[in-house]
């Protein structure tokens, strides 16, 4: 597998130009999470001598060197370096052998004494250094991606129990959010103080929405979220970095809150609950968007169908910048590697800003 990236090599400035609502040479594309070993091996054209999983769920990440090579081969402009702290999650294996989050173990204040500790900040920063070294001279930028406090607290408690806990024991959920925030704020500060000039941008990963909108009542959400999120991203804003936030869900009532907090970019604009063309029209110049290519299309669609959707996005979403193409969640095991590559090749074919939506004449 070789994608023809000759004309459009990885270039972090392409990504940043689009995220700053301007037009670069071609529509950028990025996958924030690839958890499919098959896709990595297909693109890298070799077997990995280790097994990868979802880093946010405790799995082994791809190595920095392999991740950067993956991006280069695709003409992708940046990769993530993860700073995860998702304590006390419980996973079970399904009958097909796949691993799934099922619960958390923090049910009482006393359980907080048994919170799984985070990785040492120095170790995490060394990991970032390895990413930066691997990316040097490649054009690939590094995005520092931090887990946050809202969904991490809910996952540590157990999602259903956490939803009850907003009424039954709100002090516990708030205390847990603050413990998570205190640590991740320190990580953010360390990253931005030591590597602020080296990283492309900062990302926070926090699912606050579902397909009907906010997960909890706006009145309660506004008491819990904005102040804490402002604290978390303050070091990045002080360092002049763009801040990207991942959250699932219907964005109508979510984006105004994120914008007020200081978020610059949203991922992944799930198509099940959002019309991305309308979202982009409403937020033109204020909130950049990443994603929205429906993963069921990538998993079950034909290559012609995938190419047609990408072509449409190049024509309708790319003009003016502010959009970066990517999947609606992540590239997971089960998505045929060739379908993923078809999506990328279609961006290269139809995403040139000189003639968006028209085939690039090589």
């Amino acid at each position: 597998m070789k994608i023809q990236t000759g004309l459009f090599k990885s270039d972090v400035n392409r990504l940043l130009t689009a995220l700053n609502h301007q037009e670069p040479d071609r529509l950028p594309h990025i996958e924030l999470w690839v958890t499919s070993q098959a896709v990595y091996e297909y693109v890298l054209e070799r077997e990995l001598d280790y097994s990868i999983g979802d880093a946010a769920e405790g799995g082994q990440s791809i190595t920095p060197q392999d991740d950067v090579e993956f991006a280069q081969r695709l003409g992708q402009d940046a990769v993530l370096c993860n700073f995860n702290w998702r304590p006390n999650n419980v996973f079970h294996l399904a009958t097909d052998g796949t691993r799934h989050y099922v619960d958390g173990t923090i049910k009482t204040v006393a359980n907080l004494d048994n919170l799984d500790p985070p990785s040492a900040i120095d170790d995490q920063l060394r990991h970032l250094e390895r990413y930066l070294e691997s990316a040097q001279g490649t054009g690939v930028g590094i995005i520092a991606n931090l887990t946050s406090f809202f969904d991490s607290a809910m996952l540590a408690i157990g999602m259903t129990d956490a939803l009850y806990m907003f009424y039954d024991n709100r002090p516990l959920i708030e205390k847990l959010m603050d413990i998570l925030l205190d640590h991740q704020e320190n990580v953010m500060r360390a990253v931005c103080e030591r590597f602020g000039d080296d990283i492309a941008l900062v990302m926070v990963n926090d699912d606050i929405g579902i397909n009907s909108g906010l997960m909890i009542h706006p009145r309660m959400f506004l008491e819990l979220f904005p102040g804490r999120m402002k604290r978390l991203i303050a070091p990045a804003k002080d360092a002049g970095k763009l801040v990207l936030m991942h959250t699932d869900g219907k964005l109508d009532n979510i984006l105004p809150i994120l914008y007020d907090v200081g978020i610059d970019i949203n991922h992944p604009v799930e198509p099940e609950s959002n019309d991305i063309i309308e979202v982009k029209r409403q937020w033109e110049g204020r909130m950049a968007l990443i994603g929205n290519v429906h993963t069921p299309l990538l998993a079950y669609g034909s290559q012609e169908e995938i190419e047609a959707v990408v072509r449409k996005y190049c024509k309708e979403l790319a003009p003016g910048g502010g959009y970066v193409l990517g999947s609606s969640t992540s590239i997971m095991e089960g998505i045929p590697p060739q379908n993923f590559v078809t999506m990328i090749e279609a961006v290269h074919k139809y995403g040139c800003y000189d003639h968006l939506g028209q085939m690039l004449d090589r």
Partner: protein
Amino acid sequence: MNQPALEPIYEAILIGDMGGTVENVQAAIDAGIAPESILKEGMIPAMSEVGRLFEEGECFVPEMLISARAMQGGLGILRPYLVDAGVEPLGTVAIGTVEGDMHDIGKNLVMMMLEGAGFEVIDLGVDVKPQAFIDAVQFNGAQIVAMSALLTTTMNKMEVTINAMKEAGIIDDVKVMVGGAPVTADYAEAIGADGFANDASKAATLAKSFME
């Protein structure tokens, strides 16, 4: 509401007050109000209102959960009286998260709203093989099969299950509804489901429409 004694039950469920619901259901029983009236004039309308508020964006998942919990508390008191009085459920639904998928929040929310609408619900749990859905129809009288999937890579098991129901010769005896994060109305139609709902409240409304 014809009977003022049912108003406190309605209000208690609406605000998610389980203790209040239990207390007022017991009081209504003690006052000689028919169990069917307590259920159909006090409790089900309260959950229906919760669903309406959810769909209009005035109540959210935590409020829906605590109301459903209050409803469950009240049903715990009322159920033996309903059985004694021969009150039949609105219908029977077998619900589960499809094979390979262990996510249960969406499935549990739908289950609660279905119970709140007066259905008997057979909870098949998570990671449910097609045969378990078929068994629920053949041996437990399920009139509706409700399938949930959170993952792109497991949603295809909905189609696998529907095809298994066709092969088992039961597809015409049952209505199939599907939902979950990556599922769309178009997908539901493409795989031959009878209906799709993108939230728990709409799922209850859809199930009720199947019984009309």
